[in-house]
């Protein structure tokens, strides 16, 4: 069975030789895996692991160079980029942490500019989708292709405005919050429509709305500001014939029914430390496919390879008995996760016998 057919059959609950498999890695993990398999490319690693989905991205347009602002003190070449602030096309500033592995936002342009005068980047600019177009051609029809757009209207609104400032807008300045979200919604619809037009099978969208123990926002605010806009967005996408994949970290069980109502097909990552995946399957498994669920907070970094095998088998048994489960880690696999655990995850997922 070809990977694309396997992914679609998993989503559609049709017969499969095994469940579909997916995964996201940090650059260091890709490198270790290339070395382990003795191969040259990430594509070869994905083949070796049995990953069935290929992801394509929009890039900045031709000629765009991100702007780096360096701190005033003189630093060695190695440290310069670590402590520089990088400004993207939106003029959102971000800085790397001391390990260089992660970034955090340090400059929010809408704290300094008027929303009406602030121009969003031009989606029609030359070259944005050239790479994605080429890759879709390369991967289809063998693989299921996903267009990556996990930067939703809530996350983008607070990146532009500042987290606490945007929270305050939602409580005390709703007209501003609505205006910003509407403009972002139009932009996101256009972005994801363009991905869909390239011929992808899945469009990956998302907004992190959960913390480890509960929602970031009261459900009434999620229902007021986000759910209706998601509905509009996903209706447009579904009319183009793609599956809508929704990413949302944390404990979000309270709003899963609302998310289902927006038309999502796939929910990621159903974090096992925050929610019981088997319960989510039991309640909502007939309406959505679950993607993820293999613990990156506990089992993968701190468990043994046997612990990983047990967890993967348990997930497949409880979530994938009728299809509707794509086996994947609950987040990106980073360099601290032992390689034997990564291999155990994929080996178990490939070889599990129903």
């Amino acid at each position, binding site marked *: 069975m070809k990977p694309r057919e396997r992914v679609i059959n998993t989503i559609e609950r049709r017969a499969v030789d095994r469940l579909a498999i997916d995964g996201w890695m940090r650059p260091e993990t890709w490198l270790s895996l290339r070395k382990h398999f003795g191969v040259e490319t990430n594509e070869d690693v994905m083949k070796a692991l049995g990953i069935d989905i290929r992801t394509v991205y929009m890039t900045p347009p031709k000629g765009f160079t991100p702007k780096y602002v360096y701190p005033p003190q003189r630093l060695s070449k190695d440290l310069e980029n670590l402590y520089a602030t990088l400004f993207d096309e939106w003029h959102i500033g971000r800085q790397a*942490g001391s390990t260089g592995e992660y*970034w955090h936002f340090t400059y929010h342009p809408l704290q300094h500019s008027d929303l009406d005068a602030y121009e969003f980047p031009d989606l029609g600019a030359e070259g944005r989708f050239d790479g994605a177009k080429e890759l879709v051609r390369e991967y289809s029809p063998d693989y299921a292709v996903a267009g990556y757009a996990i930067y939703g209207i809530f996350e983008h609104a607070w990146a532009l405005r500042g987290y606490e400032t945007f*929270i305050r807008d939602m409580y*005390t300045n709703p007209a501003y919050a609505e205006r910003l979200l509407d403009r972002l919604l139009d932009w996101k619809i256009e972005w994801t429509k363009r991905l869909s037009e390239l011929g992808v099978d899945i469009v990956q969208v998302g907004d992190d709305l959960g913390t*480890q123990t509960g929602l*970031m*926002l*009261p459900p009434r605010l999620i229902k007021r500001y986000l759910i209706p806009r998601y509905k509009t967005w996903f209706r447009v996408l579904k009319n183009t014939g793609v599956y809508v994949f929704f990413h949302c970290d944390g404990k979000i069980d309270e709003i899963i029914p609302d998310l289902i109502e927006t038309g999502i097909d796939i929910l990621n990552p159903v974090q096992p430390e925050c929610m019981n995946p088997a319960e989510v399957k039991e309640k909502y498994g007939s309406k959505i496919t679950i993607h993820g669920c293999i613990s990156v907070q506990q089992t993968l970094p701190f468990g043994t390879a046997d612990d990983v095998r047990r967890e993967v088998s348990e997930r497949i048994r409880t979530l994938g008995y009728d299809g509707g489960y794509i086996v994947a880690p609950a987040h990106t696999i980073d360099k601290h996760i032992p390689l034997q655990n990564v291999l155990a995850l994929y080996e178990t997922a490939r070889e599990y016998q129903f």
Partner: protein
Amino acid sequence: MPPRREVLASYLKAISECIVELRIAEIQGVVKQALDAGVAVEDILGAVADASQEVGAKFEHNEFFLSDLIMAGETTKIALAAVTPFVKGTPRTSGRVVIGTIEGDLHDIGKNLVIRLLEANGFEAFDLGIDVPAKKFAQKAAEVRAECVGISALLSVTVPTIKNVAEHLENAGLRSKVRIIAGGAALRKEYVNQLKIDAAVNDVVEGLNIVKSWVNKN
């Protein structure tokens, strides 16, 4: 002349309600009205503290969410700022807490929330920011004579670094005087011994109550 008891109660109730109902735009005016009417600063501070307790309880019972806590913290900050000029002498503090997100981790929502709650409960919080080397926690604790160090961590891989904070405090001869609490998604209660810390929590209100219980015992 101080206002009659029932009038006093109505001013204090208005302040508490304003905080619990997150009416941030009104709090300054409500506190000012109380001060103009002759309500004692101590009574206003008491009302603010009671409201903070109620906000914490609502979060514990899932009636409040993270964003509600942020708004309640902002509202409380405005109330405290409005009474500060009228506080006579050195303001009483519940205790001093040095707090930061551990090296390698850049998440700050949880840490900032804890700071708001600590401040709303009369603590002095010394915010070291994110990605903080273990040594800095000990240095700052020595500098401000803190009773407690709070460490935030969301990324599991940064957890082992937390034990270095205890080691730096030990080397500075401060470990017996400074309690350490770590909080965030990456923490589990059973890590306490391994990390040489005094408490590990996943919940901000639980963390606040632990810090309060330590300071009250001192």
